[in-house]
């Protein structure tokens, strides 16, 4: 794992001091809310429906047990004993008080954490494949690259007041688990001959106008990474729209100019403004890579033994993946149990999970963009024990990638922008499909739920996407089908008129019936069938029976 240098520590401490000053100026009236807002947002502090919300950065989703303990402690001391893991691999606290926030940030800095640039119109926390460095199908570990970009983008003097927020994701695999094609910039490590470089995608995004990112560079040399990113940001900062918040993301600029023209401008800026000092040399790169070497994991032939306990067997099948070092497994911890909002964990779970990680996984934990957690290196010989511990904490729901493994934004229960609630919908789905066997029959399927058009719940790229709307003061839900955030990314298509919350489950059931009916083999997953038969087939079944009166 990455460890702060003395410089990192000083920079973070400096920021805490600066934010303390900003909060003080706000409290004594020296700055207005309008002026304070961008400053607090740059420190991850929002004002939501019922309270402030603090979003703490978990760079590329990697946590140590010590950090997780600190998060639990903060949840208890300053909040209401729980936290919410987000789709950008961060954690949110829903109830902090404004005067406490500088103290919280100071406590976080003691475990090398911060809330810098988790919000605001700047470059946000860089996200990565949650299985980075753990699988054999990887060209190269993306985390060191995230760290290099994290540094470059932190307090960037030129890019802290962009037209709009800016998100970057990196994958080192063909199999994209980081949803890079729905990011402002998506980077994919690829191999060309014996050399490794980046494919660069730009202008992806969700929100009210979703776009799949377009490729603007087929092979970017490693040494040029920062200069090239700088060229993209320079172009965007100058030309991105500032007159309309809904048209300010880079995706709109790329589409208005056309990707060819945009690429031309970036290339020109890259050629003219590239700075030797931003070039990455092999020594710097190697120094960062050193931090991300695997711990001392033992290679062995131990397999996971089948138990007489069916619950355990289901969990093994659903929630574990073989580690690249034989005899070990990657454990996925579902935060989608029936009883809690998706992505939430309470302080007790966090404390105990930190202990489990210390005992069984070299003290490492990861956060996935699908709002689950990972124990990255667990010995096969100890996996039953791990399951047993997790099960006691209600953290062993065997549903990874199944229908109840939903992505869900906080919705109108917390968020000031939401038009409908989303957590109750996800809970309805969890309740309805709680049986593992039933879920297994549906195969891998992603349901993603957003409580408003801003699409924090990624509904556009859900195989089944659900968007909460307000229709004359009542909550209604629009369904989209066929979205995907993987390497074959696509934006879901709207099936038709929206459904009331009571009818939504019936509608989902009917969609699943259509899928089941059209499966040509057991291997056909939902997306395969959808792409084969198209949306019309689903519509027919859906509205013929439920009618359009919903």
């Amino acid at each position, binding site marked *: 794992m990455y460890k702060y240098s003395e*410089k990192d520590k*000083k*920079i973070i401490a*400096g920021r805490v*001091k*600066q934010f303390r*000053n*900003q909060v003080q*100026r706000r409290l004594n009236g*020296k*700055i207005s809310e309008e*002026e304070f807002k*961008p*400053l607090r947002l740059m420190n991850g502090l929002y004002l939501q429906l019922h309270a402030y919300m603090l979003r703490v950065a978990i760079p590329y989703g990697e946590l140590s047990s010590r950090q997780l303990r600190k998060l639990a402690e903060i949840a208890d001391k300053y909040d209401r004993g729980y936290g919410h893991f987000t789709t950008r691999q961060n954690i949110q606290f829903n109830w902090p008080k404004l005067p406490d926030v500088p103290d919280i940030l100071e406590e976080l800095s003691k475990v090398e954490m911060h809330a810098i640039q988790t919000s605001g*119109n700047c470059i946000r926390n860089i996200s990565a494949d949650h299985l980075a460095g753990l699988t054999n199908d990887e060209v190269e570990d993306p985390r060191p690259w995230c760290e290099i970009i994290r*540094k*470059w983008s*932190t*307090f*960037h*003097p*030129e*890019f*802290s*007041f*962009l*037209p709009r927020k800016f998100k970057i994701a990196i994958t080192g695999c063909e199999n994209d688990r980081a949803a890079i094609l729905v990011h402002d910039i998506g980077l994919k490590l690829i191999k060309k001959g014996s050399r490794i470089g980046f494919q660069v995608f730009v202008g992806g995004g969700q929100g009210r106008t979703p776009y799949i990112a377009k490729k603007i560079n087929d092979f970017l040399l490693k040494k040029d990474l920062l200069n090239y990113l700088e060229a993209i940001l*320079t172009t965007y*900062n*100058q030309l991105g729209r*500032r007159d309309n918040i809904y048209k300010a993301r880079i995706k709109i600029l790329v589409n208005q100019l056309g990707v060819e023209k945009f690429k031309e401008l970036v290339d020109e800026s890259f050629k*003219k*403004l590239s*700075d030797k*000092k*931003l070039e990455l040399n092999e020594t710097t790169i190697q120094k960062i890579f050193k931090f991300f070497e695997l711990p001392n994991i033992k290679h062995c032939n131990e397999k996971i033994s089948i138990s007489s306990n069916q619950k355990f067997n289901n969990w093994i099948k659903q929630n574990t993946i073989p580690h690249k070092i034989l005899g070990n497994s990657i454990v996925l911890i579902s935060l989608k149990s029936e009883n809690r909002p998706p992505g939430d964990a309470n302080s007790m779970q966090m404390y105990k999970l930190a202990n489990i990680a210390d005992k069984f996984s070299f003290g490492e934990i990861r956060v996935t963009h699908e709002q689950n957690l990972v124990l990255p290196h667990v010995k096969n010989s100890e996996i039953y024990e791990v399951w047993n511990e997790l099960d006691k904490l209600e953290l062993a729901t065997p549903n990874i990638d199944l229908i109840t493994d939903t992505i869900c934004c906080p919705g109108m229960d917390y968020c000031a922008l939401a038009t409908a609630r989303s957590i109750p919908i996800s809970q309805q789905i969890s309740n309805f499909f709680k049986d593992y066997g039933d879920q297994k029959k549906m195969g891998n399927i992603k349901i993603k739920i957003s409580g408003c058009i801003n699409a924090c719940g990624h509904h556009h790229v859900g195989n089944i996407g659900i968007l909460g709307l307000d229709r004359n003061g009542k909550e209604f839900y629009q369904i989209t089908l066929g979205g995907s955030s993987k390497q074959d990314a696509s934006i879901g298509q709207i099936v038709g008129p929206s459904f009331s919350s009571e009818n939504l489950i019936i509608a989902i059931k009917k969609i699943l019936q259509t899928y089941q009916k059209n499966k040509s083999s057991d291997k056909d997953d939902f997306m395969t069938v959808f792409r084969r038969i198209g949306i019309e087939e689903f519509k027919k079944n859906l509205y013929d029976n439920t009618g359009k009166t919903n």
Partner: protein
Amino acid sequence: MIILEKQTEKKNLYQRISQDEFSVNKIKTSSMLSLNQFMEAEKRIKSKNLKVGIFLNSDQSLDCLKDKLELFSIIQINFKSFKDGRPFTMAKELRKLHLYNGEVRASGHILPDQFVFLLRCGFDNVEIDGKEKKEWIELYNMDEGLYYQP
């Protein structure tokens, strides 16, 4: 209004000219012209070998001036809102792309929290309300000079 360069207050040597008082013949080296005024006066400035100041708003592009920068002893970029980050890129391009070495000044709606960013992007000084001087210097002094960027 005062001019602040790091911790030091500086005398303002330039005056803006209102449209009523503007006349091409009255232009001096201490004039701070708007883009339109400059276009009107460009010929005379060149023929008299004058150097003047130019005042741009954050939404005005530098593109049409890039070959004329030697005519300016100062370029003032005025923020319409502190949230409009274009001037940061404008200053960088002035310095790094166009190699402009005259004075660059920020004015308008800017916050003391942006002071160091402004200086790092190539601004020399800021025009601010004299009442805020203490705050600006305080935030300038809080900076320890540790950055991740070159």
